């Protein structure tokens, strides 16, 4: 297929074919990282700017590595020392980056819709590296790449997403992406962390961890953000682990080849035990590796978009 989009903002916006095309492209880029010289000239002469308004280690490094392996020049903007601290608006910052003749902006922002807004105002490509509670499309792409690689397909698989669904952009992107590719998605959390109307996105809902685990081919465990200050009755950590935490005991009762995923960073002993995080089902570090290929594919494709 011919890629036409200059931006990657949300998996909600993409067709099944477009998502598959990104995954196929990612599949072919994966080999690059296994080479002795880990570089292809695909984006030589292009400039990628990482504009991160929220702290991030994994995603920012992953984008940087991905861009560098495509031979792009990468600039990381440190918000702490930038004009943003002087009150510059997001659009103005974006326009300046565009005026510096960058080709792609990778944006991480705490407000939902920030990437969409920036993309509307810029002619250069915008890749959403997570906006508020809205979407984190490259995370879902790397999750899907991992499932596909490990289990050979996505269609017809049962995938459960467990944890703070309400505030999770990872959950939203995964639901859109996985359901478009034909997976059966269940979300599982305490009632207060299930956002209203989520079933209209195509996900089943349960508050029972046993239900979420039963027959699941893969589980994606989300980070519990106990630092959130805006919730009343947020479950206490220990209580949460008891009711929803993924333990070896719980996994013994389910499918033998179940995949255990987590977008990181992990709260060991809260959403999952250390044993599980480091155990035989865990593909958490492989997800990180796949993140490079998924982001290489995205950068490569949006660079071709108009």
């Amino acid at each position: 297929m011919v890629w036409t989009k200059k931006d990657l903002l949300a998996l909600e916006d993409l067709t099944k074919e477009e998502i598959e095309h990104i995954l196929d492209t990612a599949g072919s880029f994966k080999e690059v990282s296994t080479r002795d010289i880990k570089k292809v000239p695909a984006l030589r002469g292009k400039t990628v700017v990482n504009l991160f308004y929220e702290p991030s280690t994994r995603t920012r490094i992953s984008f940087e590595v991905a861009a560098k392996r495509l031979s792009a020049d990468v600039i990381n903007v440190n918000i702490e020392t930038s004009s943003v601290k002087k009150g510059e608006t997001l659009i103005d910052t974006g326009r300046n980056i565009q005026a510096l003749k960058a080709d792609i902006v990778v944006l991480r922002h705490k407000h939902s819709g920030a990437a969409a807004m920036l993309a509307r105002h810029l002619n250069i490509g915008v890749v959403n590296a997570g906006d508020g509670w809205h979407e984190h499309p490259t995370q879902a792409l790397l999750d899907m790449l991992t499932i596909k690689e490990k289990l050979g397909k996505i269609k017809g698989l049962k995938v459960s997403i467990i944890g703070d669904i309400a505030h999770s952009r990872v959950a939203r992107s995964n639901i859109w992406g996985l359901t478009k590719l034909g997976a059966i998605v269940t979300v599982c959390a305490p009632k207060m962390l299930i956002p209203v109307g989520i079933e209209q996105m195509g996900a089943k809902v349960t508050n029972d961890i046993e239900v979420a685990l039963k027959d699941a081919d893969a589980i994606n465990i989300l980070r519990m953000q106990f630092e959130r200050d805006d919730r009343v009755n947020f479950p206490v950590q220990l209580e949460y682990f008891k009711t929803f935490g993924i333990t070896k005991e719980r996994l013994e009762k389910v499918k033998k080849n179940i995949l255990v995923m987590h977008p990181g960073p992990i709260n060991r002993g809260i959403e999952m035990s250390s044993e599980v995080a480091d155990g035989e089902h865990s593909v958490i570090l492989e997800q990180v590796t796949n993140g490079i290929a998924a982001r290489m594919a995205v950068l490569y494709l949006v660079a071709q978009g108009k």
Partner: protein
Amino acid sequence: MGLLIKNGFVIDSANKISEPRDILVSNGKIEKVDKKINNKTKNTINARGKIVIPGIFDMHVHLREPGREDKETVYTGTLAALAGGVTQVLAMPNTDPAIDSPENSEILKQIITKSANCNVSICAAITKKRQGEELVDFGKLKSNGVVAFSDDGNSVDNQEIMDEAFRHAAEHDLLIICHSEDKTLSKKGVVNYGFTSTRMGLRGVSNESEYKRISRDIELAKKHNARIHIAHVSCKESVGIIKKAKEQGVKVTCETAPHYFSLTEEDVLGYDTNKKMNPPLRSEQDKQAIIDGLKEGIIDVIASDHAPHTENEKNIEFDKAEFGVIGLQSILSVCTTELLHKHVLGWTDIVEKLCLAPARILDVDCGTLSVGKNADIAIVSPEQDWTLDKKQILSKSKNSAFLNKKLKGQVWCTIHNGQIVYMDKE
């Protein structure tokens, strides 16, 4: 000296006129309305094919003066009004300073005298600084010419204070306009609560936050047999509650805004901050309930809730952007596009809701084409297709929810006090 409007189709709901009529205007007043008027006046407007209605009374307008002249002024706001066929507005009091004292209403009056292009009625606050704590001096403000009271933008949370406000209102026969919103329920919401808020990853504003407060406000008004007007009704349950109250004989009236019967939460999905307002755009079902409410006469008035905000306040992250959209220049066109041409309301009902009902509710002498009244008239090209372009907007702020939207029906000419004050160039 005079002005003759010939061959137009006149809609004057108050006088039950809905047929071709000529209108003769002289000395700023309507002198004669008749089938054929032959007068040797130099100024004749040929209104063949046009609809001639009373000037619109938009009873929910934020002119922002004094205090926020960067958003709008009385001058620019009323200029936009005229281009929208609006000849009378009710200015809301959430200015800086708020219109919460005779002194402050005097400041606004002077600005109006100096710079208004159309008639401006004043709505004062219910409480000092609109903080919901201390009532204003209703009596003095009324004798100073204030026609209604509202803390618009805020709801008076304290029930005792609202109770007291309605007691005063009943005593002095004042109209209280309620911005009914329970902020403990709407919290920091920015879009409709439900699938939309979930899908967009934004906090939601529930219908409940609106209709629960409407229930409370109506109860309090009922207790004192006071008049109450509910501003910007946006959801299904609210329409039901108001219907019931009307059946029980409560002196309640209400308004909705054009965006609530023309747009839905789906229109916000692109994070366009020009679709961000309070209350938010609701579901398709709510929109239909608003349309039904207009049809059944439960919703008395259509008012724009014209809320200008600068580019700086709108062209930012959705969460951070101000609530509100402008609407003076598009109010009639949205009504013709969505109500007239979709056979929801006929002209007589549209004129009732845009012109006559606000005049009756606020007891202002306008909204009709009766002989002897001020000649405030709008002439409309009912079939005109057009698209609202930023450049056409006369408001200081350009935050319209209808930018680049195809509309059918347009104000062609506006007459205020017998003078042609706006004429479409095409």
